[in-house]
Every structure is written in C-alpha cells, then in structure tokens.
C-alpha cells in the first residue's frame, strides 16, 4: 500500500488555498459587466398582495429591471422531492412554491419582487422605493392551532394547514396500541425538538449568466448538489434544457443541509440574466439567511415507552407535529417521515413501534433537512424517554440500554421500524464509553463539584442513524421522486496521473484529500498524482451530491467501482504487454507482474500504452483508460455510537457548564481519521448548540425574533469544551466495497440527548424533581425548573 492510502490521517490539500485567501467562493466571482440583484421581502407573515407599484423604483438610478411574482406565473414551482401518503390514503398537499410570491406572501422574508441594477447599492435603494400594498392577515404560527384549522390558512387553495398525517408502520399500529395498553409500565414524555437555523458561515449566493450567442445558461451557486439543482431548474421550474444549463458550485462555505435545496433566487438570477443579457449576481445578507434559508428540526412530540418491570422494552409510540413552514422545501417531506420514523426503534430489540407524524404548514420560513435530518429528532425522543423510564424504574441508564441493545450476533437485524441493520456492536461502544468517560470516577468528581456549590450530572446516550442514502428502488417505493445513487469517473491521463470526477460536493468534508486516498490505495500510486473534480455539471457525471453522510459510502463506493474497472482494463493491457493472459497477471503496489517470473510492467507504462496504442490489440480492446461507475447502495448504512457528557449546573443561576463530552462512534472503515475526527467535533458543536444555546423563535405574529447573530446564539469557542472523540470501535459496513458508514452527522445526533440527560441527572442528584427541560436548556429554563 502506498503512503496516504485508506486509513492515513493525510493533511488536507484544500487547506492551502483556504489558508491563503485563494479559495473561490461564489461571491468571489464577478463576471465582466455583472449587474446586481436585491429582493423585496415581506415584512408580514401572512398577507394578501393587493398591488405592487414599481414605477418609482424603476426610475431610480442604475435600475435595469424589476421582477414580481406576475413575471413567473407561467413557469413551474419548486417541487418537493418526496411524495408522502397520509394514513387515510390521501396524497400529501403540495401547494405551488413560486419563484416570487404571487397573490399572497406567506412568511416574513418571502420575496415578492426583485430589482436588478448596475450596482448593489442602487438595487438596494430601489427596493426601498417599491410600493407594495400588502394587507396583513392573521398569521399561522403555532402548530397546534394550525392543525385545529381555526380558519386561518397558509394556503387557501388546499383548505387545510395539514400537509399530511403519516403513520409508520401502519400494519404495526394495532399491535403497538395493544402492547402499550397491556404493558406493566409506560413512560410518557412530551418534548420539543427546537427549531434551528443552519447558519453555514457563507451566506447563499447565486450568479446567473446567459450567452445569447449559444443559448447557454450558467448558474454559479452555493450548492451541495449542482446536478440536483440543475435537474430541478430544468425539469420543474424554468424549463431550461439540461444541456443548455451548467451549474457550478465552486468552493462552498458550509451547508449542513441548507444548500441542498433549490431556492427561488437561483431561478430569478437566471431569468434576469436572460432578459438583460448581462450576468446577474445576488448575495444574501445574514438577515436574508435567517429569513429565507430552510430552517431545521421544529418537532413537537409525545413519546410513550412501554416496558416490563425489569426494563425490557415492549413498544415505542410517538405522535409528532413537524413544522414544514410556509412552502415545501425539496426534502421537507422526507425528513420528518422516512428519515425519522424508520429510526424510531433505535439500537434496541423492541418488538413494537408506531410513529405518527403530522406535517403542518405555518407562516414561517420553510423547514427542511439540517445536519442529521430526522435522525436527531428520533434519537432525542428515544434517548430522553429511555432516561426518564430508567429513573422511574430505579434502573441505571446504562443498564436499561444494555438490557435492550441488539447484540453483536443478531445482525442482520430487522428493526421494528422497518430497517435492516447490517452491522454494529453497541455493547462494545458502551464498554469503551464506560472506560473513556471514566464512569467509575464520576462520584468523586461530583463530590468535588458539590464542594464548589455546583450540581454535577452524567448523561449518556446511544444512537443509531441511517446514512448513505439510499437504495433507489427502496426509496422509490417509499415515495422518493429521485434516485439516490452517486457517480464517479476515473480518468487515467496518458502520463499516468489521474483525474476523478465525482457527483459528491465537498464544502468542508475534505473530499479532495480523502477520495484520492481510496484510488491510491487500490492502484498503489501516490495520492498526490490524483485530483478530484467536483461541483461543475459540465465536467462531472450525474451524481446526487452531498448530504445525509452519503459522500463516502455512496460516491466513494462509485469511485471504488470505477477504479475496479480501471484495474480490469489496465490488467488486460498489461497482459498484452507481458504476452500472457489477464488471469495470470498479479497487480499490487502499482505493478502488474506474472507470478514466478521477472516479467512486470508499471501502472504508468500501462496508462501510456492505453493512449498510444501501438502494438495494441485494437480489435478486442478499446484505447484509453477511463471508467465511470454509478453506484446504487444495497441498503442504508448504520453508524452508531455511545456518548457521555458531564455537566455542572450552577444552582444560583441555572447556568449549565459542560465539563466533558466523550463521543465513541462506529463509522465502519475510516479513510482519513483526521477528517473524521473533525466531522464529529463539528457535529458535537452543533448538537451542543441545539441543546444549550440555539433557538429560532417566531412571535405570535410570525415575526422572527431570533433574526440575527446578535439574537440567535451560535456556539462560540468559549461555549464549548475540548472533546474526546474515538472511532476505533468499528464494525465494517457489510454491503459497500469500502466498508464505511458515514460520519458527517453523528455528533449532531448523539450530543443533544446526552447533554439534556446530563442536566436532568444533575438536578435529580441535587434533589430537584425535574424530569425534563426543553432545549435549549438555557439558564432561565433550568432555574425555572429548579424553582417551580
């Protein structure tokens, strides 16, 4: 194996450009003659657009064009990517999501007009001069009221605020109800999974270009999946033929889900570029990001856990209301259903699971997948109710989990929520956690904290997630409107170095470093001779992009399969060069050889032969050395983990301080442990942010109260501890060629329940009768719980 193959903590090659200011993010591009776009956005949550007078704005200096919803009546809406069927067999409600609001505005920040001008300042000034007569209507904000259907509707034409009422698995419903009715013990918990704003540090940005000479469009945009965006724009929204539209996603400054989706601003700049014959650029302010990026989470859940008196689980049953906001974003219907309900058996041998999710339209920004996407919600509900149950039964929280863990010899394991887990070893993770987090020393540390007047608690959590989305046939049956394979082309250049074109997109994950490690490992060549090409639909095969911790498991597997094809063909060429049969050729460390002889030829010479095919068996073998693979996974992957945290609560103020955070994860085979550790650490920060700090809050009128970084508490360096991260307790994924499971979301899934469990533990040990505090567990909430 060469240095820097699978398993090496290779330093990232992309870092050099980012560290020297040479990264190229979308806003860093300003094509010649660029014009600038600014949006007029609704200041009310629900309103009837009576008139929009743009005449004064149009007369302002530098103004080139003004668009309103009227200009896009003839084009399509931005679709939901997953069709959900309600329990009564009715299809979900799918109101049109237009490029610009038309007729009504439906959330604060809903764009109803756009100005294009020579400069950004001129565009912004002209937005101020648009006279919009918008009649404010009562806003639908609270989900319970929305479902009660008080007569105020987000979308009048569908006659309800309920998008769907979904049950999973409907065939298990009666048995689950019966099991709960008869169970010796039932623990019930009502909880809120707080609404979050992804806040990737780079705001969204889009540049539209149109070449009248060729009819070609180009969209440079902040996307996690340029091909998916192109498909949506072409097939659903603007109807631009795919072959006439290039979507570029250059360096992207974080996504966390929020840049998966196609947004109306992208369609607007393309349409405007066509109309004006000039490039049109729009860059979101952070305020626009708060108001118009897809938010995350926002579930209200009641969960019941039925068990025997000894803690053996009998059933989980949940009722959830999931906010989808004012419009259906692309994955918004999949996130609270198939990415959530299917995980509701957790790591456990529970026989009965039933999940009900009502998706609710409200006059708030759209809600969609955010780091973890449904799985953090499932894990939080399960791991909080399990902790409460253990407390009620007088059991140790570790013991109750171990009692119900799926055991290592039970795989493949068909969960009661409909998934087949392929591998795992939850007891090994918990064994490791007990040692690494030093459970034995907790009492002494607690006593020490007590001396300082602090309440110390220990929280634990076990999680499983489904990553590597997803088998296309399976998700097709479940309602997905796309396939979820990925694709890679491995092009060996004549001089032997290699370009790999991938469908995944790297926006922090380090693909440019990690993917070459796979190819280098297989071909026995120096990874420095391999480059990754991503983010340009004119160069890369049709892949589905990066989200759901899928890049390595799915696209990496495509890279693996394409490289296998390279080896097969290169072996055939080498066999010809060595005058033997391919079956007699060995390939290792970059050299083709015939066992028992001194005959060999290097990979570079074979590559050269492929492109200069002299004395070449041209009748039976094509020249060239380039292969493409589309990889469609056989199953989801199932990363799992065991986390522990110790916290101190100040009883005077309710302030929670995290003393330790230990994360043990099973990601299967790890390609680059340095990058994986970084992914976990970033996820932990986001999970801790959700648990302690972050909350996206609308008031009763639908005004976003937490609409800036001064109001929305992002985790900062001094809010967080040093983390202990360990991914050595690995079990191989059994169905993809690398054996990897995915690591991008784990930290954000495992940490919120760990923290809340720790806080409740601290209060309980301090003699406070508190069984739950909703996130974010802020000082005021903790203090109120202690002093109720």
């Amino acid at each position, binding site marked *: 194996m060469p240095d820097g193959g699978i398993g090496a903590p290779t330093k990232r090659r992309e870092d050099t450009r980012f560290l020297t200011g040479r*990264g190229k993010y979308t806003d860093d591009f300003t094509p010649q003659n660029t014009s600038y776009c600014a949006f007029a956005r609704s200041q009310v949550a629900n309103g009837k657009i009576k008139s929009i007078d743009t005449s004064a704005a149009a007369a302002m200096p530098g103004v080139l064009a003004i668009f309103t919803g009227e200009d896009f009546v003839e084009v399509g809406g931005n679709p939901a990517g997953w069709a959900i069927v309600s329990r009564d067999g009715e299809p979900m409600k799918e109101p049109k999501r237009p490029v610009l609001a038309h007729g009504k505005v439906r959330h604060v920040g809903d764009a109803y007009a756009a100005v294009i001008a020579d400069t950004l300042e001129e565009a912004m000034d002209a937005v101020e001069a648009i006279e919009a007569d918008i009649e404010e209507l009562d806003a639908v904000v609270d989900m319970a009221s929305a479902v009660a259907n008080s007569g105020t509707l987000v979308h009048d034409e569908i006659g309800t605020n309920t998008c769907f009422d979904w049950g999973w698995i409907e065939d298990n419903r009666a048995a689950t109800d019966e099991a709960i009715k008869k169970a010796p013990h039932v623990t019930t918990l009502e909880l809120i999974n707080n609404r979050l704003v992804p806040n990737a540090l780079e705001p969204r940005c889009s540049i539209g270009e149109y070449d009248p000479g060729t009819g070609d469009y180009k969209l440079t945009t902040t996307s996690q999946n340029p091909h998916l965006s192109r498909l949506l724009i072409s097939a659903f929204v603007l109807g631009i033929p795919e072959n006439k539209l290039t979507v570029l996603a250059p360096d992207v*400054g974080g996504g966390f889900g929020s840049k998966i989706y196609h947004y109306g601003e992208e369609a607007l700049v393309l349409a405007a570029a066509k109309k004006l014959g000039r490039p049109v650029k729009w860059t979101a302010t952070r305020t626009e990001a708060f108001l118009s990026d897809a938010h995350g989470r926002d579930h209200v859940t009641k969960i019941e856990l039925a068990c025997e008196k000894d803690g053996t689980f009998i059933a989980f049953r949940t009722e959830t209301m999931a906010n989808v906001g004012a419009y259906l974003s692309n994955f918004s219907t999949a996130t609270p259903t198939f990415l959530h309900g299917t995980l509701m058996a957790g790591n456990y041998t529970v026989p009965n699971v039933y999940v009900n999710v009502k998706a609710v339209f409200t006059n708030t920004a759209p809600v969609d997948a955010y780091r973890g996407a449904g799985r953090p919600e499932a894990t939080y509900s399960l791991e909080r109710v399990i902790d409460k149950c253990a407390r009620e039964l007088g059991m140790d929280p570790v013991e109750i989990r171990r009692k119900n863990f799926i055991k290592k010899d039970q795989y493949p394991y068909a969960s009661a929520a409909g998934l087949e887990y392929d591998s795992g070893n939850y007891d090994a993770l918990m064994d490791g956690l007990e040692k690494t987090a030093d459970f034995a020393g907790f009492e002494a540390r607690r006593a020490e904290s007590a001396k300082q007047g602090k309440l110390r608690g220990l929280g634990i959590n076990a999680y499983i997630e489904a990553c590597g989305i997803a088998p296309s046939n399976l998700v097709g049956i479940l309602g997905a409107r796309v396939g979820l394979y990925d694709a890679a082309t491995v092009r060996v250049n004549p001089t032997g170095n290699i370009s790999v074109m991938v469908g995944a997109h790297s926006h*922090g994950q380090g693909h440019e470093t990690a993917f070459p490690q796979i190819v280098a490992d297989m071909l026995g060549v120096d990874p420095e001779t391999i480059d990754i090409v991503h983010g340009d639909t004119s160069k890369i095969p049709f892949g589905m992009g990066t989200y759901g911790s899928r890049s390595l498991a799915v696209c990496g597997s495509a890279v693996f399969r394409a490289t296998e094809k390279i080896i097969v063909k290169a072996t055939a060429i080498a066999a010809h060069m060595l005058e033997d049969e391919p079956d007699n050729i060995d390939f290792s460390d970059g050299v083709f050889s015939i066992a028992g002889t001194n005959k060999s030829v290097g990979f570079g010479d074979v590559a050269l032969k492929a492109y200069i095919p002299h004395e070449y068996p041209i009748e039976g073998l094509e020249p060239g050395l380039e292969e493409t693979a589309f990889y469609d996974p056989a199953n989801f992957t199932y990363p799992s983990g065991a986390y522990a945290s110790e916290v101190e609560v100040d009883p005077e103020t309710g302030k929670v301080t995290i003393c330790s955070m230990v994360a043990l994860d099973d990601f299967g085979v790890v390609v680059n442990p340095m990058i994986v550790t970084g992914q976990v650490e970033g996820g932990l920060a986001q999970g801790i942010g959700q648990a302690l700090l972050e909350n996206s809050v609308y008031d009763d009128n639908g005004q976003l109260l937490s609409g800036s970084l001064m109001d929305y508490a992002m985790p900062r360096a001094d809010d967080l501890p040093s983390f202990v991260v360990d991914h050595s307790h690995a079990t191989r994924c059994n169905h993809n060629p690398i054996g990897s499971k995915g690591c991008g979301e784990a930290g954000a899934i495992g940490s919120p329940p760990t923290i809340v469990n720790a806080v409740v533990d601290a209060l309980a040990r301090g003699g406070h009768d508190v069984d739950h505090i909703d996130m974010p567990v802020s000082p005021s909430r903790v203090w109120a719980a202690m002093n109720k």
Partner: protein
Amino acid sequence: MPKVTMNINGRARSTEVENRTLLSTALREKLHLTGTHIGCDTSQCGACVVHVNGKAVKSCAVFAVELDGATIDTIEGQAAPDGSLNVIQQAFKDHHGLQCGFCTPGMVMSAAALLKDNPKPNEAEIRDYLEGNICRCTGYQGIVNAIMAASGQAVPAIAAE
C-alpha cells in the same frame, strides 16, 4: 467619490469609495482581495477580520473612507512571497483547524493578533479571544489546537487510532 490610499500587504493601493463603503466591501469589490469574507451584517461572525495599523479589526465595522494612509494586512499577505505558509497557517493545516474555509481568513488574522499580544496563551485564553470569530464547521477544537501549536505548546495527537 472620495479616494483613499492604503498600504495593503506592503503595497500602496488607491481606490475610490462611497462614504458608506465598508472596508470589507472595498477590499473585496474594489481591490479584488476576496480572501476577506463577509459572513454577517452585524459584525458578529469575524470572517472579515483584518489588521488595521497592526490591530485586529472587523473590516465590516469600519468605513474605508476613514482609512486614508492606514496600513492594512489581510489574509493574502500572510504567506511568504514563495507561497509557503506562515507558522499559524501551517498549524491550522497540521491540526485540522479548518473545514469549509470560510471563517478561516478571519480566524488566522485573529490568531495572529492574539499571539502578538500573548505569545503563549492557554486554552481558556484562546477560547475567550476567539469569542468574536464564529466557525460553524470545526467545533473550534482544531482551531484551538492549531493556535496552541503555533505558539509552541503541546497539543494532543490528532485522531489517535
């Protein structure tokens, strides 16, 4: 429009700006120094930190027109002329102190200012100093480790596996 001349990364640079033009905008749009990033509109995120007359400043919080004659250092001036990384940049690379790279220019410039004032900060001092720089990717651990390393202090081995 007023004209300002600043010494930027060792070179005199002149540009015309509106009175309302922020230094961050002037650097990016007028002088094409796009390494300085804009991540917010409330001077909270710190992606735009540069040095003005040797002090770390959020370039979105100062008007360019005020800076005639000022000395400005940006991320583009941190590496050696041959492109080799300086000690802080190298430490960020060695200790995985960046992921998407968007906050990185501001982080590196803040770290440089910190180490100028406090050559051997402890972890708490580093975390406290970085309060004005938001990173959404790393959880700050790699950044803290990088600054420890850049100041010659021991850090835990990465990815002990």
